């Protein structure tokens, strides 16, 4: 009697264990399946566009001729965003980790995190309605005084809705990402390294250059890469801010286009081969961001092993 009840209850417990661990395993595998599915379904749906005769694709010169200007446009916008955001983000991270008064530091961290909480469409609306208008006098000035540089060739856009404005909005959006990652890394600097530098008579800046920055170099690089991944894939800021057009070198004229914005602007009304073309563009974006993110993650894991040895 007692033995049967014991075995019974044990049987039920073992079943519970099996079901539960099976469920967790299934959930984990589902995630891998989803990521695989993202790649698979994008490839399947994009396939018609990749093999279609060139004259059927928008522009009439095949998929490659369609995609490369917007790939370049995407890169231009992302590079502008990073060029602005990286120094500011490192400065902000240093301010919060090493310069701000202790009591204020975490509160200031929340304030910067608020930047990340604002939805991208609001940034887009802000960029289009406020920033573009305010910044267009600067573009006119650049066109008048620096026009001999191809990047600032006039005539400047009257509305200010240029790739440079879009890049600035993107910079604001990736700033909190880079800041929060680099801040974490700066805070991990071994206290003894910092104190040793200060004890040798270093000023605060010399201490940061000798102890904090070398320790955080890999982390900074990977944070910037993650910011790059975000900037490449950001849609709304560009779709609302940029008045798009053909690829141009000038940053202060309207023109250029990014992959994400191209998809967002055209997908809702697309049908047939156009859908395939846009999904193929999405596939290209997916591959680019996947590569960037994997490199960033690889740097982080390598760095982890390295710092574990210290």
């Amino acid at each position, binding site marked *: 009697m007692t033995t049967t009840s014991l075995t019974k209850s044990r049987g039920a417990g073992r079943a519970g264990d099996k079901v*539960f661990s099976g469920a*967790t395993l299934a959930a*984990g595998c589902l995630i891998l399946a989803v990521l695989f599915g*993202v790649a698979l379904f994008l490839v399947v749906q994009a396939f018609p566009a990749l093999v279609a005769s060139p004259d059927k694709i928008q522009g009439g010169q095949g998929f490659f001729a369609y995609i490369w200007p917007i790939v370049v446009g995407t890169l231009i916008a992302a590079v502008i965003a990073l060029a602005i955001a990286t120094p500011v983000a490192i400065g902000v991270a240093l301010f919060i980790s090493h310069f701000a008064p202790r009591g204020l530091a975490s509160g200031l961290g929340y304030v910067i995190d608020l930047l990340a*909480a*604002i*939805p991208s469409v*609001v940034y887009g609306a802000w960029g289009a309605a406020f920033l573009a208008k305010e910044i267009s006098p600067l573009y006119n000035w650049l066109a008048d005084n620096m026009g001999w540089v191809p990047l600032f060739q006039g005539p400047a856009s009257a509305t200010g809705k240029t790739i440079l404005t879009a890049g600035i909005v993107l910079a604001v959006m990736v700033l909190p990402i880079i800041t929060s990652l680099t801040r974490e890394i700066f805070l991990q600097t071994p206290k003894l390294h910092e104190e040793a530098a200060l004890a040798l008579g270093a000023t605060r800046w010399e201490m940061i250059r000798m102890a904090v920055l070398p320790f955080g170099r890999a982390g900074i690089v990977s944070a910037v890469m993650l910011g790059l991944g975000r900037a490449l894939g950001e849609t709304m800021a560009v779709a609302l801010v940029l008045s798009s057009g053909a690829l141009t070198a000038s940053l202060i004229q309207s023109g250029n286009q990014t992959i*994400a914005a191209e998809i967002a602007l055209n997908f809702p009304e697309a049908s047939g081969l156009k859908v395939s073309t846009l999904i193929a563009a999405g596939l290209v974006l997916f591959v680019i961001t996947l590569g960037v993110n994997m490199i960033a993650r690889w740097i982080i894991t390598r760095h982890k092993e390295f710092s574990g040895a210290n």
Partner: protein
Amino acid sequence: MTSTLTPVRKRSALTKGQLPKAAPYIVLALALIIGAAILALIGFNAFGWGIVAAILFTVGLVGWSAAVEGSRKAKDKLATCLVVGAFLIALLPLISVIWTVLVKGLPGLLDPGFLGTSMNGVTGAFDNKSVEQGAPVMGGIYHALVGTVQITLLATVISVPVGLLTAIYLVEYGEDRALSRAITFFVDVMTGIPSIVAGLFAAAFFLAVVGPGTKTGAVAAVALSVLMIPVVVRSSEEMLKIVPNELREAAYALGVRKWRTILKVVIPTAISGIASGVTLAIARVIGETAPILVTAGFATTINNNVFGGWMASLPTFIYTQILNPTSPSNPGPSDQRAWGAALVLIILVMLLNLGARLVARIFAPKAGR
């Protein structure tokens, strides 16, 4: 006998070449005055004044320090000025965005019926009338609110079980196997998927499975889940990891099965962190525009069925009202509605962020000792 002299000499050696304590304030006051004077010559505005004063302050303080204290201290002062300047620059867009949304959004939000009516039947004619004859702006965001709440809820219902179970697998069962390392790596990679690609995936998936033209709230919820799951996994994993091992061992020692230990001991201990992580994940996806744009289409009427028909949401409402105003000749009322919706969206996101902190505090495990 020299002992009385030496300290005096040392003191002077140390204080020699130091700026007085009030130096930054003196330079700041001078920079503000000179900056105002320069700006008065070329036309005054507060923003330019701030920039000119900041540059003058940096140059003045660093120059003075270089002259008195030497180049090392001057470099230190320069770095401090630049770092503080970077922080102030980062604050500018935050203040500007919130100010713009408040100023432009309040008239829309205070419009009677803004939260309670949809855009059903609101045509350009009404907008023209409100601009030309001063009639109140018609239309509202009720349909978009309904859509946002339903899509986000469905996405949460999909993401939380999957994300939480995966986190449990990684922490409790993974044991650093190849599979768990692969999941960790690809979850990290998934956090970097562009939102529009997640939307395209959901669209391509339903295009292949259901057929062309499938645009419903459920497709959008699947797209949002792709973005939400990695966030839930990461935050839950962190929270499960900090549950002390002693608790698990105590339960095992009492003969409790592993699954009951996890359900009754581990998760209740970590529930505050998990709940706040989920809330933050909701806050992240509720503002996503691009995936909804390519999956749920755009509706002007109230749609209570998340599995059928096009659906509006707050972000896509803002987007379309700005890009395709209801009345192309008079975009004013559409603008007002868009900014009103933006204000509502920001308030929602901020409430969720605040809620996450409150949840973390309320459900925090009672610290016994």
